[in-house]
């Protein structure tokens, strides 16, 4: 009996509505790739371009993973983009100004992200500031801090040996010389896998869904809602720290003016991936597919020499279209 039911539940986990959503997003991604391949076969499907696409997805992908957790709780975090920059800047301070050893500096940047997320979580739960406002304030605050700390000048990591290898080196390439997949891409996929497990198999993930599904029910179940919210924001902030390291490593510098606007790209990727802004629903795989849809679209349009202004217009339309088709599918059910 229990054998049967666990089998049935496994099946429904993979064949249920969420799987269908991922299938739809995945089909859209494939369609985009096929279209661009057909239109520009010699430029799109080259190894350099594919690695370029993978590379350009990493930062948004990791930020989108961080946002997925927040959005499933039916919250929102507008500070992820600027927090990423702040973590990069602090990484620069630790490694370049204070000469910390590399592993400690890397860890420090992630801890800065987690602490900042924790502060956002506390603002939301203790001061009862709505997430939108709390993280909007945090965004402005962090942007200012990044500029103050750096004197509005980039911090370069030229003298830090191995720092650029975090994103640009290729562990896989060292083993299989034909597969020059940069470490940044590897890190994104590893992060995605870890976070998918956390979201689906741990108490943290269970409470993430439960909070977005019905916060009052969770509270009346005797769960410390505020504590778990702070934990989720802290965790998400830590992931932003990883994104900060990735972008700093790729640019080999911490650019204090960068970052604003990344949060919106991340939210777009999350939503395209089928996570509901009203909470309770979402997957990491969907989010990663959403991030790839965004970067394949931008890359493809650039290859076809579409002007940057028109790239923006088209991206906007695609986001609206993606959510609209998702609504259609939901209504049919």
């Amino acid at each position, binding site marked *: 009996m229990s054998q049967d039911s666990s089998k049935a*539940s496994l099946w429904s986990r993979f064949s*249920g509505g969420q799987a269908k959503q991922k299938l739809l997003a995945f089909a859209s991604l494939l369609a985009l790739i096929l279209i661009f391949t057909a239109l520009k076969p010699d430029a799109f499907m080259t190894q350099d371009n594919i690695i370029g696409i993978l590379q350009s997805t990493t930062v948004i992908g990791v930020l989108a993973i961080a946002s997925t957790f927040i959005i499933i709780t039916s919250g929102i975090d507008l500070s992820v983009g600027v927090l990423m920059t702040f973590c990069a800047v602090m990484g620069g301070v630790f490694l370049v100004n204070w000469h910390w050893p590399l592993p400690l500096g890397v860890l420090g940047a992630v801890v800065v992200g987690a602490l900042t997320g924790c502060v956002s979580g506390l603002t939301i739960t203790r001061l009862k500031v709505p997430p939108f406002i709390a993280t909007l304030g945090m965004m402005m605050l962090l942007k200012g801090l990044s500029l103050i700390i750096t004197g509005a000048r980039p911090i370069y990591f030229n003298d830090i040996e191995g720092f650029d290898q975090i994103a640009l080196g290729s562990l896989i390439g060292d083993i299989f010389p034909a597969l020059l997949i940069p470490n940044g891409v590897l890190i994104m996929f590893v992060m995605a896998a870890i976070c998918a497990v956390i979201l689906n198999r*741990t108490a943290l993930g269970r409470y993430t869904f439960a909070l977005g*599904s019905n916060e009052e*029910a969770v509270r*009346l179940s*005797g769960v410390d809602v505020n504590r778990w919210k702070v934990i989720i924001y802290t965790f998400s902030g830590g992931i932003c720290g990883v994104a900060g390291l990735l972008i700093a490593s790729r640019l080999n510098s911490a650019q204090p003016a960068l970052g604003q606007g990344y949060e919106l790209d991340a939210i777009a990727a999350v939503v395209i991936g089928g996570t509901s802004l009203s909470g309770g629903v979402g997957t990491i795989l969907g989010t990663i597919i959403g991030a790839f849809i965004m970067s394949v679209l931008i890359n493809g349009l650039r290859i076809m020499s579409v002007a940057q202004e028109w790239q923006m217009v088209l991206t906007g339309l695609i986001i609206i279209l993606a959510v609209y088709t998702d609504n259609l599918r939901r209504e049919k059910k």
Partner: protein
Amino acid sequence: MTALIAVKNLSKSFPGVKALQDVQFDLQAGEVHALMGENGAGKSTLMKILAGVYTRDEGEMLLDGVPVEITSPAHAQALAIGIIHQELYLMSHLTAAQNIFLGREPKGSMGLFLDEDKLNRDTQVLFDRMHLDMPPETRIGDLTVARQQMVEIAKALSFKSRVLIMDEPTAALNNAEIEELFRIIRQLREEGVGIVYISHKMDEIQRIADRITVMRDGRYINTVAAQTPMAEIIAMMVGRKLEHAEKHIPDTSANEVLLDVRGLSRGRAIRDVNFTVRRGEILGFAGLMGAGRTEVARAVFGADTIDSGEVRVHGKVIALKSPRDAVQAGIGYLSEDRKHFGLATGMDVESNITLPSLRRWLKWGVFLNRSAIHAVGQEMVDKLRIKTPSLTQVARLLSGGNQQKVVIAKWLVQDCEVLIFDEPTRGIDVGAKSEIYKLVNDLAAQGKAIIVISSELPEVLHLSHRILVMCEGRITGDVSALDATQESLMALATRREEQAAPFH
């Protein structure tokens, strides 16, 4: 006489479900026609077809003897068919008048600005017709649920409705408010309005209805006069006779006191409430809406803060800062509004069942132990006979009775010894009700201490061993269920303090 509305051989299917099969129904002008049946019997589907929300697959619909297609809710309104849904669709920040004429606001001379005076005048006319004493400028948010319902009725009347469909209109009303509603229903009936009345409450239906149509499993069963004995109607609804066990109250006076509440106070809502519940005892809380019963339950559970007082479990005082403290002390609370407060409706059955006790189903304190969660979920589904296609069914898709069982299951898994049931059978059909009653009795027999809060006096009388009556935040009576009658409880429930401020 030609029927106002007649429905013949109506059928309607949804993917995988035959919701209605060969249903007959007719409504005369100037009658109250009750529609009864268990949840899922097809009442709501039938009414939604009449109100233009769904279209039928087969069958005939006649309005004044003329065949008619009702294509949309707007079309139904134009045909003078009004529906008052169980959930009220009002905007709490707007006034009563603004709500009633939303989308049809009278315009002033320029055709630009709204004519707020005419709006209020027109509303006043409607209220006068209903003999309703209420200023049209009142904000909906400031009204009681009962008054909000009156506004919905006024809104339906503003469309000059000749057919009025009411879906469980008294679910959230106290007795005085029900009287006011019935007065308005009787008056509309005299004016020739045909009223379809959906309710689970038998006594009400016998008081207000002229005829009763019973449905079961999407099929028409019979139409009978409202005077038909209840037992007969229930038998038609459930298709079998319900057992009526002799009431037996066990002697629990020597048992351990599990819950001991002393001097509980919170503002005007709770005033110096003291009571105890022993192992194996079912303590009922009776009183009118707003008497403070739910407030006491939420305070004992730590969901609301208190001004003073203490709560002891097993004789030990517990800190009452959050539901977490109460749950750790072994108190479980089944809230009156399952959908809003009790269930994470978007999550599946097993996740809901294990939510309070999740810590116990973790490997290394971090990872969910899925097989253990399946096992305990299955155990509860079997034990409480929860009807669900699988453990991973989303809770929202279960019927009300089964949702209630899921909430009970989660507290049983948590090993709660004190269980507070707040309106345990609201919105649950007759068959599921008797199962919940049996469950509550079984739990008491197993040594749990149980508190039952209910607005339905027959339910309190039926379930409880001992009954506390509340009025305006105070306990006004403590009686054995054997001695109590509906009348004696009602008298206690309205025993107000002499110098109490006038109640609005």
